[in-house]
């Protein structure tokens, strides 16, 4: 697989361009203190992500990619600067309000699926709805419909142990969608999966983005995923090095070729 930068002339997806801004960061700084030493993981990041966009976040390890990702996901609060998620400044919220944002506005998809091992697929999907105060029966109906959407309707009573990695990730996606979030935050969703299953997950995410209008922010190294995204954020040394539109690069997907 290779990737080349194209000249920045081609057309970009106009849908995303015209829609309102969903996430806006301004001069976000995040410092980690360990004793006397302070490390600046982010040193003033400013960016905008619009509704319905599919954004890939890329960067080498230690670049601040994870920190950027976690800050816009309301998982950590920045040391300074503003992070507006759906016009709410995350940095100003207390922990219960943060819990509410995480519950209602953002869906999380993890590299290692993170299903609750003691619960069945359906119950895993229902947990976040219960946190949101949805009634048991409504949550059950919606949980089943979400499982149907990810193609696991007949496996609703399986525990995570009885599901394959790809199936677990699909349950996790169903769970992340439970409270109709505006944003899906995916952390290397295909890294633990084989080629074919990974492709299924990518197809599912793309379908959610295109048909459901869900904004997807995805930290990934998977070129197939990058191939599907609208914009790519390149993070380096705690700053956004560059932002490229999908049309500015060429992704070539190929197997190993003989010379």
């Amino acid at each position, binding site marked *: 697989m290779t990737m080349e930068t194209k000249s920045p002339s081609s057309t970009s997806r106009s849908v995303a361009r015209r829609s309102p801004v969903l996430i806006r960061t301004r001069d976000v700084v995040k410092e980690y203190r360990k004793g006397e030493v302070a490390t600046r993981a982010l040193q003033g990041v400013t960016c905008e992500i619009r509704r319905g966009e599919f954004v890939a976040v890329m960067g080498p390890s230690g670049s601040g990619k994870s920190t950027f990702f976690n800050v816009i996901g309301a998982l950590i609060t920045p040391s300074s600067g503003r992070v507006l998620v759906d016009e709410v400044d995350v940095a100003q919220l207390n922990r219960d309000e943060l819990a509410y944002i995480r519950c209602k506005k953002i869906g999380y998809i993890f590299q290692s699926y993170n299903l609750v*091992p003691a619960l069945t697929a359906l119950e895993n999907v229902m947990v976040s709805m219960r946190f949101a105060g949805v009634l048991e029966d409504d949550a059950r109906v919606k949980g089943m419909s979400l499982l149907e959407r990810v193609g696991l309707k007949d496996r609703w009573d399986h525990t995570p142990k009885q599901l394959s990695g790809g199936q677990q990730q699909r349950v996790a996606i169903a769970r992340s969608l439970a409270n109709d979030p505006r944003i899906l935050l995916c952390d290397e969703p295909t890294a633990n999966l084989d080629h074919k299953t990974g492709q299924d997950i990518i197809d599912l995410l793309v379908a959610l983005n295109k048909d459901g209008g869900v904004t997807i922010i995805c930290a990934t190294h998977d070129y197939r995923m990058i191939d599907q995204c609208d914009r790519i954020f390149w993070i380096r040394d705690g700053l956004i090095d560059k932002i490229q539109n999908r049309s500015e690069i060429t992704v070539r997907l190929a197997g190993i070729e003989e010379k």
Partner: protein
Amino acid sequence: MLEIREQTRLPLGKLLRICRLSIAHRLLRSFVTVAIIALAIAFLASTLTAARLGLAARDEAVRETRDFSAYSRFLTALQAWSGPAAALDWMASAPDDAATAANLQEWGGGESAGAFRLQAAEARQVMNWFETLPPGSRVLLAENRSGIELLDWLAEPKNRKRFATRLAGMPSAKLPIPTERLNALLDGWLGFRAWLGEMTAGRNRRLEALAQNFAPRKPEQALIEAAASGESERIFADVEANGLAFSPDERRAIAREAVFEAQLAVALAWTREPAIRAGWNAEFQEDFSPARVLESSAGSPQRLRWIKERLGEKSAGFNEKEFSDVGEQFQRRREAFEAGKSLSTRYGTQAGIDTRTGWLIGVSFLVCVVGIANAMLMSVLERFKEIATMKCLGARNETIGFLFIFESLAMGLLGGALGIAGAVLFAVLPGLWIHGDRLLRAFPFGGLAEVADLGLAAGLILSGVAAIYPAMVASRMAPLEAMRVD
């Protein structure tokens, strides 16, 4: 601007289900935790249960000997007129009721009955202590006086000093009451003693009047005969006229007991026959004692036959069945009496938990709390990803904390129940073995239910306390931990 509402709580049923599944999911570790709680609770509950069973058996034993104790109290009352030592005994053991208090007050010339009783009890304690010392020690301490003589002698201050010096040189002899109490007793002793003598003399005069009815027999002999002939009421009327009250129930019990004593006296008289006394040891390889002969022959046809044969021509008046019945009853009474006494010493005062056991229970609870806390903490740290994920899904800190406290409480309840079941095994079975059918007759179901409640409550409290720190760790866990890849 979006509106931020308070986060909903997870409903109780859901929490319980998650707890149950979490426990089942880590069955082995949960089992260890439950076992720790069960052991601690079993220790507590079995100690308490053993005490309750002991108390129930004691009460039953005391109930069995109620007739006898009324009778012996009556006899002591009669004997109170036979000398200062007996008067002290009577006063010290007098029942704690209004009638006796009035009597004591009358006799004590206005002193309060409680203080009076205490004084008598302490004097009796010192006397008993002195009289049970080895003869050599008695000689060395106070020239082989009797107990009451010792007190008379000690009333003199210079003798008291001498006695104290001698006592200090004899580490094996230890006063049964504190020195200052003894001094207080001795300071007032001469007055008390004079009064005792007076009372005894007065009572003796009254007794003489009473005994004229039955002369020349002893009062108890008179009672036994009167009871046997159905005339005991006359005795009680006399006794009451002399300042001692007994309830109708007690009177009936005393009369019953007196009849038995008469039968016993007859039976014992048979055992004292020279022919029996002489041949017993050779025949049965046992030391002779009248009580022993009576008890061991009860229900033994072989021994009864032997006694009858030995009695020879006298055997015409010997009724084997009566003898055997009296022997059986005597044995039962003695056993009940001894059981009541020994169980009173064992369980009488502190409901069966002495200081040492108390400490052991405390330490076992501490170990239990630390053990549960450790297991819960491991469970929390092991489940960091699950907890963080729930937080990403919008769980509040409190919800996560409750989840772990619930889990711990559920295990505490389970452990408590198992521990109580264990206590039944460890206390009730041996209790039935030790106390026998006496326990079955007076099984303390109410007391055991209390112990069970206490055990469950203790299990819940222990597991609840133990879960506080792990639950805090869990509730403070950052949602970011969910991103960690292991």
